[in-house]
């Protein structure tokens, strides 16, 4: 109870754009400082309107994945045409994580939920303490320090023009953030996945590889 995470995932990034939401995460499971498992997917397609990205303990993420998959199956069996909305899932997850923390036995994860439902895009955050909120841009772990400012700056610029970024702009921005994280986060990796959610559904891409630029090394 109240233990330390073992195999962990680092930052997850989320960004709303006009028409949907994007989530991105690298594909490494770190065992302390060792990049032990380099082909892990930390993005989960929950249903046709929602994706979930997890950082933190990956064994706990697998447990969450099983819970969610069973929930989705049970729901389909009801056959009433309804499926969980991203907001509902976010709320459910908040309750689960908060209750576990209240028993001093947390699921050691910070999770981003992204989705499109009823024409509206959704991006929410829940962490192992049960802290939950929504915002047009989100990041966990190191991303909160390095990527969030970049994401917010872009959204500021767009808000002045009264719009959200386009899908391409958002995608490019996320990749730039992932590169910054690769440069500066010692627990990151240059292979990553991206999930795009729009009215049409969920698209999972990856694993893709980031190109790093080390030209500045010559200046030293």
């Amino acid at each position, binding site marked *: *109870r109240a*233990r330390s*995470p*073992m*195999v962990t995932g680092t930052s997850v990034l989320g960004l709303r754009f006009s028409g949907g939401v994007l989530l991105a995460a690298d594909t490494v*499971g770190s*065992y302390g400082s*060792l990049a*032990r*498992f380099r082909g*892990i997917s930390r993005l989960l397609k929950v249903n046709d309107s929602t994706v979930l990205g997890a950082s933190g*303990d*990956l*064994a706990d993420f*697998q*447990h969450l994945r099983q819970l969610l998959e069973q929930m989705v199956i049970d729901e389909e069996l009801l056959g009433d045409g309804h499926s969980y909305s991203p907001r509902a899932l976010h709320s459910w997850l908040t309750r689960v994580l908060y209750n576990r923390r209240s028993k001093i036995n947390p699921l050691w994860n910070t999770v981003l939920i992204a989705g499109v439902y009823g024409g509206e895009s959704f991006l929410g955050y829940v962490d192992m303490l049960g802290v939950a909120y929504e915002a047009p841009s989100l990041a966990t772990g190191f991303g909160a320090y390095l990527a969030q400012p970049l994401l917010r700056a872009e959204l500021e610029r767009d808000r002045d023009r009264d719009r959200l970024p386009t899908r391409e702009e958002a995608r490019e921005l996320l990749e730039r953030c992932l590169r910054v994280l690769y440069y500066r986060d010692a627990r990151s990796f240059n292979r990553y996945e991206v999930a795009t959610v729009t009215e049409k559904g969920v698209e999972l891409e990856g694993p893709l590889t980031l190109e790093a630029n080390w030209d500045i090394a010559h200046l030293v």
Partner: protein
Amino acid sequence: TTIMAVEFDGGVVIGADSRTTTGAYIANRVTDKLTPVHDRIFCCRSGSAADTQAVADAVAYQLAFHSVELEEPPRVRTAARLFQQSCYRYREELSAGIIPPQPPCAPQVYVVPMGGLLLRQPFAVGGSGSSYIYGFLDATFQPGMSRSQCQEFVARALALAMVRDGSSGGVIRLAAITEEGVE
């Protein structure tokens, strides 16, 4: 400890060193860390000997029961999942890293590290000695090796780890698990 398992077309090669330590004393220098949990399903154990033996015994019992109910040999994934369930539920109390490799039907290697994560991989290493050979493995591993290439690969890797890791040593125990049996 250094333990390893590699898939090849037709089976799995598993290997381990043979050293058990209590602190700096070598309690057993001829340990067998390759433990059968079913006819063609083995596991490689690392971590606390007591914990891993207990878990392996429990899983062997569960598998035996399960295969009687099923009236056929249990699946690879089932065995791995049983290990994972124990390791995850009792993660606080356990210090166990398991690699169950097995081929009925198709050869598969799974790894259950500390914490209780379950992953399938083309090859897996574990134990304290594994840290010293990640570089060697990354540089040398190629998918699609033959049985004898795998055996050589595992033997070389284990040997390198055993030299450098004080908690690994003794002899290398190798096994090849195929449809025909375990050698």
